[in-house]
């Protein structure tokens, strides 16, 4: 029984970080109806941003957060204008292969530019261990969790209480009606895409002290984020938070009982199981028409 507090704390900390990845994904999906296969590559770019700033200039990942927000917003505007804008209204196949193409290009650009070596960011706070009762965890994990939760909460508040948020929700609910009300849907999509990328970029920076950094680092996390998003109901932010906790719980228990070597198998099996048995999510039906469920 001694491990129980530790397992619970690990689940919550991990869940907070997954939530930040998943919220960006669910925002893009909910509003643009685009499944972003390149989401993991932006996570990877966030991790590399932290790695290079730390290695070249000794900057702490938390300082980089300040740069990462505008930077990823700009990357979002750029990729939207260059790549996504023309395919928002296109067929599934076109959207799939556009984002898959983006993913392949970014992943291999990272591979060519920075090689496939595993890199590590180890600032002072990744070595600080905090103990509360029987549970122990390191400082980076706690800060990552707090910042992630703060960001997610800010985004939820933004969507709920600001005018821009209302406009975005209106577009998500009914594009035609929103257009008739004079909403510039192109701007809404651009904003949703860019905010989604800021979330995942921040998540990458926050995760850099906790995980190794390499060109395909995004893949496992993005598949995981899809489990979360599907579990929570597509386009549903609160659902994404709950989904993150569930997925984190499964991962923590899985690595505790089966060993961390096999935990990736658990991700993927869980993923297939969720898609097969609960494609409309645990809590709702939103977006299920896209799945054909």
């Amino acid at each position, binding site marked *: 029984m001694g491990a129980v507090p530790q397992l619970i704390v690990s689940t919550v900390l991990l869940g907070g970080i997954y939530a930040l990845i998943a919220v960006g994904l669910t925002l893009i999906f909910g509003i643009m109806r685009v*499944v972003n*296969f390149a989401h993991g590559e932006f996570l990877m770019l966030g991790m590399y941003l932290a790695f290079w700033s730390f290695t070249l200039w000794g900057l702490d990942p938390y300082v980089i957060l300040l740069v990462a927000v505008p930077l990823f917003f700009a990357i979002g505007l750029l990729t939207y204008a260059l*790549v996504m804008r*023309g*395919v928002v209204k*296109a*067929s*599934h*196949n*076109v*959207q*799939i*292969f*556009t984002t*898959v*193409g*983006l*993913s*392949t*290009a*970014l*992943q*291999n*650009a990272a*591979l*060519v530019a920075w*090689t496939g070596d595993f890199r590590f960011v180890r600032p002072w706070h990744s070595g600080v261990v905090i103990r509360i009762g029987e549970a122990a965890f390191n400082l980076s994990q706690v800060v990552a969790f707090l910042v992630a939760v703060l960001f997610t909460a800010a985004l939820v508040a933004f969507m709920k209480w600001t005018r821009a948020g209302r406009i975005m929700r209106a577009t998500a609910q009914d594009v035609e009606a929103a257009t008739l009300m004079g909403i510039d849907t192109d701007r809404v999509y651009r904003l949703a895409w860019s905010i989604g990328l800021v979330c995942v970029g921040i998540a990458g920076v926050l995760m850099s002290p906790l995980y190794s950094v390499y060109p395909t680092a995004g*893949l*496992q996390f993005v*598949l995981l984020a*899809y489990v979360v998003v*599907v579990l929570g109901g597509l386009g549903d932010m609160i659902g994404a938070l709950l989904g993150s906790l569930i997925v984190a719980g499964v991962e923590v228990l899985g690595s505790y009982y089966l060993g961390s*070597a*096999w935990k*990736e*198998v658990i*991700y*993927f*099996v869980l*993923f*297939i199981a969720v*898609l*097969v048995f609960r*494609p409309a999510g645990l809590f709702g039906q939103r977006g299920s028409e*896209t*799945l*054909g*469920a």
Partner: protein
Amino acid sequence: MKRDVPALVLFGLAALAPVVTRDGFLLDSLILILLWGAVSGAWNVAGGYAGQVSLGHSAFFGLGAYSAALLATRWNQSPWLGLLVGALLATVAGLVIGYLANRLKGPYFGLATIAFSQVLLILASRWRAVTSGSEGIPVPFRPGFATLGFQSKIPWVYLVLTLAIGIYLVARYLETSRPGYQLAGVREDEDAAEALGIPCRRLKVAAVAASAALTSVCGGLWAQYVGFVDPFYVFSVDLSVRFALNSIIGGLGTAIGPFVGSLLITSLETYLRATFSDFKAGLIGIYLIIYGCLLIVVVRFVPQGLVGWIGERLRAMGRYARA
């Protein structure tokens, strides 16, 4: 018959190539063009004809490669048997994943198949007792037709050409037969097809399984030809994307499209490899960046693929000539 003219020209030229040249580099390029075209054609059976766009077909390719390599190295069997075992395993895997993911549409089918290929990657790289883990398996060279070991490239050209023609004929069958038309109905409008009494579910699962079996055979031959199976390559998402890419560039749901796509993409890769291998091996990844960008540009501007685009141009010219 008229529709087969481009294929006759393409395969005919391939068959004549060994008569004209004995250059190892050129023949190697030809074999790879045909082989990647064949895998892509196999992918096209599910992705193009049935509309089940898989992004995890490397799973089946890897199953084939591992079956052939393991039967040859561990149990000292003929790789022909390996091809058969691989095809059977892939059929079962295709039936399972095709059945499980049947309800899923568009991107979610793609995601489920990626997850499936990743599960196989982890199994292959961690289950050391059987697969030698992440080191991969060198496939021993044993000369002879029964063991698929040839000193010269020429038998390989004809072997792979036979496979390519076989897969082309499967695709042509899907364009002209009753099940093929039914499959097109399922792809274009599943509800309407269901209402007409077409067994949509069964057809889609069958298409995925058939596509998986063909992909696996290509994987087995590839392992014999290249002589080494690396789990991180044969189960990679990049490889799955490549299968799809050839078909999309050539033309989704066309019989010759995957081969046209492969001709372009594989030549580009071979050229870049030859150019960059001397001074900077790391730059070889550039062809993958180009893949990605090409994919974005093609689906945006020529979503019907090159074959469809050329067809439209020819028909437009025909109308112009008659008028």
